[in-house]
Structure formats: structure tokens, C-alpha cells
């Protein structure tokens, strides 16, 4: 930061210089005070005339003394203001006192796509840096410059406008491309705000956008036409440009991009199932983007677990400007529970940073589910517990179960450590007391899953009396449907993601039973806003509602998990449906540890006050304890600084702790937007888009002093006052300051 002092507070080019100069106004005051003590003595005969003269002029002398003191202070203040180069508050003042200043706000795209290296060898960022440096050097020290980095969260590089100087050139020359994504609309909005603030101070303001004009600049994830994608950020960009115009600034785009850029990127990598289990296959979902003018056949993706090859997948033809998503199965690669890293990698191209992508995950032996049963049954009497069907579904009597369910009664719940479980199922139980509710709330907030089933033993409405926002819905009074016309599952209107396989199976002639689900009783659910209704009964009555709470989820069923109210558990689709529901509501493994560049890593402290991590390029990152204030309760977390480099961060012992990736989905589409189309996207005439600029314009005619002539005028005025005062002191003694102390007559 060149000038950290708030220019808004002290409107000077060198506020500190002015502050030092302003302090010099104490000099006349000190001289004044010293003069009251230092004088020579003189015996005097004509005392009667001196005293008479003094008595007649004492008021005038005091007034003159005060005025002269103020005048001297003002002169010094003007000198300080002149030397520190005062910035006129208004354009009118600037015009009155000189031709004012011109402010250029450079919005510089420093996101990672600017680092794309084409065949010519010079990346758009290096090109833009060269042009900006050259432009800055050409200025004759008069113009004001502010530089706003357009990368997401990178913030302004020169927050407050400063006059061009070698320091500005040095700052530009020292800039490097970040690994963050682009956030153009906010950056332009920031420029508009700055232009609006400085509109009255500068004679003119202009905003220059220096960018590569790729489709992803406008939030377009595929293709080159942002206007054809309704999800693009074009309206936001246009609003920002309009705000710039409204602020009285001119807007110009310098397109330093590569029209023939070709980029292949891994934009998404995630596990298909929330938990990764030892001895089980890993299901991965991967998305590749082909951002080029030609189709790309046979793209090979290599997978590595902890640096060891875990498989390879070859994609077929990926068409130009399109992405392809595929599920990949990595057979049984994990044998030890604990933290691991998965990396997917494609061949290196001009933008290597999005050619690989990593995930950190924790491999478990099984997904532990705690089932709290309010109707435990009696095995000796052949009465099944309410969760018996669910337990059988989660843990069938075969090897390699993914789930490890454990059933307890409600009275045992306070003694169980919930941290050992991924999910807690409450079936036909009363609402917990305050203590139990706090534990469950904390469990869900930390990432656990809570699933609630009603039942005949309790009044479902009692759950509705629980306070807080833990539950995504409210139970209504139990409803009995006529035996001959039971309620049924509305397969079509239920969430397609869950029902799709069953519908597809039915279509293939496989009996899944989903159309034969009968619900004799149910507790109607009244979802809260933002809650998801995953399953619906006929008439749109919710059957399964899921809501997020903290890092976990809460699922509420409208019917029992056994056959007391419904025949769902007896249907063939019950087991896969339960699996799909659990896969949907369980928190993915390592969710907190897979970040994008620019995010912070936050971990629960485990006794240590800090945690050093080793990142890519031997970059060390230190996590420190930090008090995090949330709307629930403040708590201590180990927090890292913003992660600026993509890669896997490990402990000293080599345990992977976090994976940081670039936001490739929103930024790796390097399809170049033609100038005319870009002009439409910005909402400006085509001549405002300067394609392949050789140099950035610098209007030398208006590049005057930083504050126009105001600084010089102030300097001159201050000197004039001092000179006039000195001359008048010699010529006319009445303009001199007098000091008086009391004598016998005074």
C-alpha cells in the first residue's frame, strides 16, 4: 500500500507531510510565549508618553497580536497544505484554482485465467502488466491512479487514489497473477463507488478495465456467448458499468485476452456418496470442461490416492465449449481408516492450475447410526421394535455393510457420546428435554444427521413445541386415512433425484413397489421456509422434509419407519430408498477441508493452540486459535489465513489436512468473447472495447499536477503572507505583534 493514511480524512497527496507541516504552526505560538519571557531592560525617560501610548492602544495591540498570530499560523498552514499538495474538495474548486486532477481507476483482472500461457508465450496478465507499467512510466507525474484487483476477494491494490509516481510503477511491476477466480461485477461496482466519491475532487474520472474478456469473465461457464446463458453475470456487470457512467466517469475496456485460447480443465471432483469406507469402492463424480474451438477426444484422467495411482478414466469426445460429467469408480483403493487425499489429473496445457484437482477425505470403516427407539418391542413376544425394519435395511445380514446401526432406548441417550455417530434416528420418542436438545443441536451443528420418525406412542404435535430452528418442519396432529383409501406416495411429484432410479426401474418392468406404498396414518408436516421436501404424498402433503442446520441436516418423516402406519418398509424399494435418503442427508466426508482458493481453513481445536501445515511449493501455513462469533454461541476454532495457493496441505507427519482448489467451474472457460459481443455485455458502444492494445492511452495534455495548481497557489499564498508580513513589519510598525506584561502602570 503506497499511502495508508486515509486521504478522505486529510485530502492531501501527502497527508503525513501536511500533518508534520501543520504541527509547525506551533512555532509562532512558541516564539510568542518565549518573547514574553525574553526581553532586555532599558531605562527610559519619556515614560509618561510610552504609558499613555500603550493605554490608548492596548486593545488594538491585543487584537493585532491575535490576528497576526493567526495570520502566521495560517501562512504556515498554507505552506504545509501547498507542500503536501491539497486536493480540492470539488471539481469547481479544482477548475477555479487550476485544471484539477484526472483520476484513472484501473480494474485489473488478476484472476488465475489471466495466467494462461498461449503459444506466443506471453500470458494476458504479463501483457497487461507490461502495458500498465509502460503507461505509468509515460505519465508526467500528474495523474491520479487507483488500482482495483478484480480477482475474487483480492481487494484493491491501490485502495485510495494516489498520484502517479515511480512507486506506482514499482507496485504495478511487482504484481503477480493470483490463483483466485474473477469477480468482475463487484470490482466494477467498487470502481463506480470510488468514481462517485472522487467525482467532485477530480476534474475527470475514467475507469479502465484491463482483462482477457473471456466468457467466464461474465460468469458464463460454457460457450463464448454470455448473453445466451441466463445464469451469467451480465446484468450485474451492466449495472456496475451503468453506475460508473452515472458517476460521471468514462469506461473503457482493454482486451488483452487470447482469442484462440484452448483450455481443458477439471471443474468438479466430488464423491458420489457422502462417506468413504475402507474396503469399499470409491465413487467419484468428475466434470471436465473443454474450453476450446475444437472437440477433444480421449481425454485421460489419472487418479491418485495419497500420491499413488488409483486408476484412470478416459473420457470420450468432449465437444468444443462443452463440459462432460462422469461417475468414476475406483475399486477398493482404501485399506486404512483415516485421512487421505484424492487427486484427479489431466494432461498439462496452457493453464496448468486447473489441470488437477484434489480432495481430502476421511475413510471410515462403516457409517455408524444411532437409533433411539421409543417402541423397542419385545423379542420374546415377537413384537418388533419400531426401528427393526430400518436396522434390517441398513445392516442386512451380508458382509461389507456400509452402515453400522446401534439401537438404544431414550433413557440411554444421555450416556452416549454422539461424536462417534454419523447419524441419530429418533423413532416414536418424546421430544428430548432441554439438555438432550442441546446435545442434539450441537451434534447437528457439527455436521451430524438427525432423522425423526413419528409413531403411535407419542403425540407428534409435542415436537412442534420445541423452540429454535433445529427442526425443518412442524408436526401436525396424527391423521388416519380410510382403510379402503389409504394415502399413497406421490412418486412423480417427489424429488426426482431420489425417485429417478425407481421410476427408471419401473419403466424397465422391474417391480419396485413404489406405486403400492400405502400410508394409513401420518403426521402432516408443515415445512419451514428453505426446507426441502424430498418425498410427497398425494395432494402435495410432505412425507419427508430435510433442512440444513449448521453443518449437518435434520430429516423429518411424516410416517413411521416400521409397518405400523405404512407398508413402505415391506416394499422392495425400501432398502435402496433408505440408502438414497441417507446418502442425501449425511454430511460428505471432509466437507470443511476441501476449499477454494481465498477461503480459510477452520478446524476444531484438539488441545493444540496452533497447527502448522505444509502446503504446495513448501508454503507453510499456521492455523491459530481464534474466537469465532456465530449467532449460536462463540467458540474457539483453529483458523488459517486465506489460502492463496491451490494444493494439498499436510501436517509435518504427512497427514493430509486440507485440499485447496481453484474455482475452475466459474473461471476456466477461456472462450474469448468478441469485441462486439463484449460491448453488448458491458452495455457500451463497441469503440469502448480496445482489442489487443499496443499501449494504454495517456492523455498527456491533461496530466497536470496532482492537485492542479492548487498546491502551488497555496504555497505562493503562504509565502506571500509571510513576505507581506515581514515587509509591513519593517515599513509599518503598527502591523507588528506586541506583547505586554503587567508593570506597575500597566
Amino acid at each position, binding site marked *: 500500500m503506497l499511502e495508508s493514511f486515509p486521504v478522505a480524512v486529510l485530502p492531501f497527496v501527502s497527508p503525513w507531510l501536511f500533518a508534520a507541516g501543520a504541527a509547525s504552526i506551533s512555532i509562532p505560538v512558541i516564539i510568542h510565549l518565549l*518573547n*514574553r519571557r*525574553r*526581553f*532586555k*531592560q*532599558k*531605562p*527610559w*525617560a*519619556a*515614560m*509618561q*508618553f*510610552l*504609558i*499613555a*501610548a*500603550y493605554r*490608548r*492602544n492596548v486593545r488594538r*495591540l491585543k487584537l*493585532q497580536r491575535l490576528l497576526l498570530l493567526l495570520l502566521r499560523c495560517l501562512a504556515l498552514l498554507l505552506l504545509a497544505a501547498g507542500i503536501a499538495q491539497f486536493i480540492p474538495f470539488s471539481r469547481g474548486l479544482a477548475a477555479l484554482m487550476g485544471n484539477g486532477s484526472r483520476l484513472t481507476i484501473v480494474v485489473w483482472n488478476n484472476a488465475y485465467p489471466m495466467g494462461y500461457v498461449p503459444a506466443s508465450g506471453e500470458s494476458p496478465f504479463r501483457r497487461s502488466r507490461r502495458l500498465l507499467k509502460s503507461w505509468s512510466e509515460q505519465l508526467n507525474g500528474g495523474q491520479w491512479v487507483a488500482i482495483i484487483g478484480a480477482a475474487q476477494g483480492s481487494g484493491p491494490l491501490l485502495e485510495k487514489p494516489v498520484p502517479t509516481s515511480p512507486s506506482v510503477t514499482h507496485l504495478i511491476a511487482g504484481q503477480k497473477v493470483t490463483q483466485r477466480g474473477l469477480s468482475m461485477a463487484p470490482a466494477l461496482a467498487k470502481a463506480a463507488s470510488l468514481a462517485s466519491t472522487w467525482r467532485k475532487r477530480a476534474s475527470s474520472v475514467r475507469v479502465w478495465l484491463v482483462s482477457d474478456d473471456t466468457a467466464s469473465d461474465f460468469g458464463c461457464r460454457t460457450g463464448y456467448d454470455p448473453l445466451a446463458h441466463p445464469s451469467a453475470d451480465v446484468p450485474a456487470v451492466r449495472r456496475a458499468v451503468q453506475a460508473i457512467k452515472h458517476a460521471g466517469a468514462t469506461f473503457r475496456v482493454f482486451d488483452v485476452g487470447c482469442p484462440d485460447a484452448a483450455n481443458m480443465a477439471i471443474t468438479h471432483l466430488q464423491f458420489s456418496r457422502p462417506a468413504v469406507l475402507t474396503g469399499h469402492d470409491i465413487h467419484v463424480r468428475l466434470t471436465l470442461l473443454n474450453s476450446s474451438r475444437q472437440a477433444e477426444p480421449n481425454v485421460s484422467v489419472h487418479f491418485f490416492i495419497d500420491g499413488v495411482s488409483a486408476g484412470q478414466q478416459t473420457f470420450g469426445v468432449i465437444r468444443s465449449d462443452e463440459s462432460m460429467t462422469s461417475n468414476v469408480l475406483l475399486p477398493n483403493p482404501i485399506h486404512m481408516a483415516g485421512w487421505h487425499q484424492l487427486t484427479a489429473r489431466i494432461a498439462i496445457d496452457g493453464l496448468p492450475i486447473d489441470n488437477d484437482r484434489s480432495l481430502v477425505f476421511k475413510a471410515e470403516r462403516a457409517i455408524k447410526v444411532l437409533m433411539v427407539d421409543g417402541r423397542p418391542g419385545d423379542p420374546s413376544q415377537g413384537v418388533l421394535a419400531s426401528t427393526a425394519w430400518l436396522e434390517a435395511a441398513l445392516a442386512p445380514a451380508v458382509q461389507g455393510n456400509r452402515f453400522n446401526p446401534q439401537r438404544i432406548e431414550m433413557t440411554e441417550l444421555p450416556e452416549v457420546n454422539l461424536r462417534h455417530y454419523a447419524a441419530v434416528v429418533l423413532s416414536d420418542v418424546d421430544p428430548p428435554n432441554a439438555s438432550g436438545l442441546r446435545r442434539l443441536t450441537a451434534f447437528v451443528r457439527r455436521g451430524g444427521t438427525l432423522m425423526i420418525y413419528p409413531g403411535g406412542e407419542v403425540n407428534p404435535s409435542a415436537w412442534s413445541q420445541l423452540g429454535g430452528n433445529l427442526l425443518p418442519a412442524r408436526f401436525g396432529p396424527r391423521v388416519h386415512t380410510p382403510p379402503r383409501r389409504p394415502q399413497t406416495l406421490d412418486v412423480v411429484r417427489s424429488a426426482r433425484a431420489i425417485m429417478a432410479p425407481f421410476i427408471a426401474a419401473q419403466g424397465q418392468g422391474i417391480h419396485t413397489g413404489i406405486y403400492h406404498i400405502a400410508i394409513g396414518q401420518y403426521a402432516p408436516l408443515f415445512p419451514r421456509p428453505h426446507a426441502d421436501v424430498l418425498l410427497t404424498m398425494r395432494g402435495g402433503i410432505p412425507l419427508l422434509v430435510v433442512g440444513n442446520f449448521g453443518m449437518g441436516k435434520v430429516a423429518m418423516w411424516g410416517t413411521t419407519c416400521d409397518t405400523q402406519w405404512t407398508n413402505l418398509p415391506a416394499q422392495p424399494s425400501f432398502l435402496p430408498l433408505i440408502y438414497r435418503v441417507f446418502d442425501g442427508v449425511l454430511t460428505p466426508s471432509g466437507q470443511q477441508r476441501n476449499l477454494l482458493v481465498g477461503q480459510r481453513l477452520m478446524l476444531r481445536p484438539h488441545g493444540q493452540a496452533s497447527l502448522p501445515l505444509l502446503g504446495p511449493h513448501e508454503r507453510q501455513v499456521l492455523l491459530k486459535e481464534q474466537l469465532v462469533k456465530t449467532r449460536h454461541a462463540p467458540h474457539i476454532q483453529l483458523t488459517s489465513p486465506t489460502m492463496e495457493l491451490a494444493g494439498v496441505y499436510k501436517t509435518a507427519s504427512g497427514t493430509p489436512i486440507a485440499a485447496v482448489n481453484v474455482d475452475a467451474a466459474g473461471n476456466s472457460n477461456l472462450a474469448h468473447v468478441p469485441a462486439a459481443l463484449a460491448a453488448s455485455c458491458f452495455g457500451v458502444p463497441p469503440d469502448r472495447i480496445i482489442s489487443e492494445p499496443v499501449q494504454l492511452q495517456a492523455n498527456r495534455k491533461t496530466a497536470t499536477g496532482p492537485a492542479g495548481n492548487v498546491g502551488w497557489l497555496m504555497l505562493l499564498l503562504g509565502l506571500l503572507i509571510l513576505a507581506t508580513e515581514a515587509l509591513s*513589519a519593517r515599513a509599518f*510598525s*503598527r502591523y*507588528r*505583534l*506586541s*506583547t*505586554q*506584561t503587567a*508593570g*506597575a*502602570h*500597566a
Partner: protein
Amino acid sequence: MAAGKSPTEAVNYRQYLDPKVLAKIGALDIRARLIMEGFISGMHRSPYKGFSIEFAQHRPYTSGDDIKFIDWKVFGRTDRHYIKQYEEETNLQVMLVVDASASMAYSGRSDPPWRKYDHAISIAASLAYAALQQRDSAGLAVYDSRIRRIIRPSNNSRQWRIMIEELSATVGEQKTDIGMVLDQIAEEIKHRSLVILISDLFDDADRLIKGVRHLRYRRHDLICLQVLDHDELDFPFNQTTMFKGLEEASELVVEPQALREAYLKEITEHNNRIRDACHQLRVDCIQIDTSVPLDVSLPNFLASRATRMS
């Protein structure tokens, strides 16, 4: 400068009479504006005709006239009796009144110090010497708040030395009171005299003018020689200074240039008022700057006065 020395010390009488000064004064006549009454013939015209050696006019003889004044030559030619009248020249009685108050001790910035009093007694000595040289009588009064010493006018050959000794011995330390002193002088001098007041006139103007009026009422001729240091006329100080009164127990710390104009206005008003009053009373009031040499200021004054008398 004999001022400040003890009376027992030898007095260099000549130090107050710069030969250049006296040479110029000797070449000029001191002429009183009024005809003084006197006993010895000299250059001063007597107001009494008939007993002088210089013929004035004839008038017809009347009963009671002394027959020794009958001009018998006229009687021989005309057979009528005429009395021959003469205009007699008298001696001048000069009374030098010298201010020896504390304010006269101001010495300004000259090196070696040259007090206003030094200047005053030099003038007094010069004038006394000149008067005695032409056989006029000269007297002296030295005063501050009162008359400290008075030497009655005489043309004795030792008179000048006596005056010089007195001037040298007197050191005033008190506040001046010119009005009262002039009143006393007016009462003390019986004959019409030329009174020469040598002072800085730093006193209440009303009382001073009242004293002058008293002197004029007694038909004395008066010349005021106001002796001022150049500092008092120009106030040339520029540093913050504490002025301590020589006659008054007062102190004033000022930045002098801020008060210069006001001070000069005050002192000029004072001087103008005295000068105007003197002019109305037909009194010469001359301002003498101590920085101007005596051989310049005194001859200039005497020349201008002689011109007026003629």
C-alpha cells in the same frame, strides 16, 4: 563630562566649551527681544533715553529738565532751547535655568555615554561664557523637583567658574516640576531678565505653560531649549524591551515597533502644545537633539534669533 563627579574633584571648565562652539558663539550677538534694563553700557539698548551716550533725538526744553542736557549748539544756531536725548545701551541679565531631574540622565545609545544633562550643561556653559564675554550678567538655577541651587546674575570675572562648578556638581535624582520652578524663578528675579530654560520639558504641560506665563507676566524674556535624546525623538528600538521609568516607578514590556507610532504621536502632541503656548506668549522654544553637535545647534539657534531681533 564633569557631571556625576564630586564637587571636590578638579573641574575641567573648558570641556563644556568646545573651541569651535565658542568661536561661533563669539561671532554672534545675543540680542534680547526686549530691551533690558541694565547698568552698564553694552550692546543692549536701554529702554531709558536721556542718559546714554548714543544720540537718539531732540525735543523742546520744558520746565524741570536738567539744563545740562540742553544742546547749546542748536541754541546758537536757532536761539531755541532743545534738549538732547540719548539712547543708552544697557547690560543683559541672563538667567540660565537647567533641569537636573532624573529624566535628564538618559544617555541613549552613544558611546561614550552622553546624557541629556551633559548636553544641557554644555549649552548653559556656552551661553554663560558668551554672555559674560560681552559684559552681560549671567546667573544660574539648577533644579529638579525644586530649585537646588541658584546663582544670582553677575558679570563678575569669577561668575562663569562658579556657574560651571555648580553645573558639574549637581546631580538630580528626583522627578521634575518645571511649573513650580518657573514660578519660583519669576519671584526670585527682580530685574527683567532673559531666562533660558534648558530642559527636556517632560512634565505636565499645563503646569509648565502656567510657569511660562508667570515669567512673561513679570516681563522676563524666556527661551526654552528642549534637550531630547535622539532615541526619544525616533524610538528606534525593535526588540521586545522592558522600559523602566527614570522618574517614575513603572515598567512596561512592549514590542517597541508596535507602539512606535503611538508613542511618537504622544510626544509630538506634547511638544506641539508647549511650542504653541510659547509662541502665543512670544517665547522661543527650540528643540535640541543631543545627537546633533553643539557647534551646529547653538549657532543655528542664535543666528535665527538674531535675525528675528533685527
